[in-house]
């Protein structure tokens, strides 16, 4: 639950961690888009919320006026001196440094590298489905979706899969604890740093064929990354890779549970899956990013001040009728779909090829094992609060086996 007053005026006093936003943000964005387009709130020391596709793209491209040194809105802003590197490169970095940090990760997450992980991902999804066998009601978020990205990234990094709960607890703290005092926010991150320090030291002594060793061997600015820098990059991969993918898989299953026609279509035409995955990513894009305004300026009539937050709601851009026909409808075979689920511009999600693979495999394996299903208790579905939105409680019923 957010530690804040409930929102009554979305144009002048919004809060993106409000329960109303978590439960169903689309009507809020639709209303703002057609009336206000850029909302403003004094919470968190000042936040702007553009809602149109055009404005979200313009701000994402404008790295001269908007900094990435903090991308999760809270009362705490990373100090200006930390730019252009930031606390978790490359997501927290600005040009010109950003490009070098990003280059370290690009080959590891390239389409080719990712396709090698497909068989193990499929086997893992099938294992999870096997564990749910015989149960009439399962939680698609807790029993299925949440485990997939954790296992995949732990394997890539070379960390024990058994530590999944440690990573998840940490990610939750960073993404949903945004209203906590700064001391508590920092304190919550220390145990994971200790944990990673131990594993990194072990990798320094015994290099192996995994991502931690590769990061330890990588160069930025002509010198090798040190243990602390590697730890920060791992933290970023955990934060950026887990809740996001979990949310995308969960939201897609939520949609399919409520839409038998789309389910049947995918079962009859498996070749449609890549197009369907892009459409589900468009309609249920889980990630909203943020920027900090660099200097006082007038931006399209908005009096922006240095250090104001600007949210980049890619999910709202994806529902803008000016950019998409039937923007509020899932058109499962939508062919023209310039969606922004993975962002746009220099910070395009490095993990997008991996995420797309996980989503495709997770949905395919689910449909093969559970072709027919519905929400067991629609009113009990719970969505996460904050900048990454997806179902966290998602009870699904399937027809009892004869």
């Amino acid at each position, binding site marked *: 639950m957010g530690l804040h007053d409930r929102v009554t005026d979305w144009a002048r006093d919004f809060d993106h961690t409000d329960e109303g936003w978590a439960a169903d943000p689309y009507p809020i964005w639709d209303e703002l888009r057609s009336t206000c387009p850029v909302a403003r709130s004094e919470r968190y020391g000042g936040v702007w919320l553009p809602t149109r596709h055009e404005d979200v793209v313009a701000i994402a491209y404008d790295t001269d006026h908007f900094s990435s040194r903090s991308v999760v809105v809270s009362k705490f802003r990373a100090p200006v001196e930390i730019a252009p590197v930031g606390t978790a490169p490359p997501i927290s970095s600005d040009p010109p440094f950003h490009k070098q940090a990003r280059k370290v990760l690009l080959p590891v997450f*390239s389409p080719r590298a990712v396709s090698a992980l497909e068989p193990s991902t499929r086997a893992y999804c099938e294992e999870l489905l096997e564990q749910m066998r015989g149960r009439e009601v399962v939680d698609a978020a807790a029993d299925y979706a949440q485990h997939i990205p954790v296992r995949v990234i732990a394997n890539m990094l070379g960390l024990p899969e058994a530590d999944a709960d440690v990573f998840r607890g940490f990610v939750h703290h960073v993404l949903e604890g945004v209203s906590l005092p700064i001391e508590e926010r920092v304190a919550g991150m220390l145990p994971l740093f200790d944990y990673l320090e131990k594993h990194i030291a072990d990798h320094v002594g015994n290099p192996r064929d995994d991502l931690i060793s590769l990061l330890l061997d990588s160069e930025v600015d002509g010198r090798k990354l040190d243990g602390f820098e590697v730890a920060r990059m791992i933290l970023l991969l955990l934060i950026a890779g887990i809740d996001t993918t979990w949310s995308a898989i969960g939201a897609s299953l939520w949609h399919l549970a409520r839409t038998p026609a789309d389910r049947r279509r995918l079962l009859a035409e498996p070749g449609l899956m890549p197009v369907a995955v*892009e459409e589900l990513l468009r309609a249920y894009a889980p990630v909203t990013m943020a920027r900090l305004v660099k200097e006082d300026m007038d931006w399209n009539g908005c009096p922006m001040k240095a250090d104001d937050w600007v949210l980049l709601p890619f999910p709202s851009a994806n529902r803008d009728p000016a950019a998409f026909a039937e923007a509020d409808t899932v058109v499962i075979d939508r062919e023209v779909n*310039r969606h922004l689920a993975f962002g*746009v511009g220099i910070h*395009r999600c490095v993990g997008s090829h991996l995420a*797309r693979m996980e989503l495709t495999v997770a949905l395919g394996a689910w449909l093969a094992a559970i072709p027919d299903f519905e929400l067991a208790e629609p009113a009990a579905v719970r969505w996460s609060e904050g900048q990454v939105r997806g179902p966290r409680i998602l009870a699904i019923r399937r027809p009892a086996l004869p």
Partner: protein
Amino acid sequence: MMWRMNVHVDADRCQGHGRCYLTAPGLFEADDLGSGRPIGDGAVPVALQHDARLAVANCPERAVSFEGT
């Protein structure tokens, strides 16, 4: 005159979303970093014209275009 169409990727705009090589695998491929590039000289056979149009329409960075000759 014979009508000819080539696809082109603007490397400065491309951010490696991969929509071009996923949508039109017969026309684009990924490099080692995941950026898109045309296969060969990017000439579009008649059978792949629809794919080519979709690649142009789906690139989030508007990096894919046609070069007519």
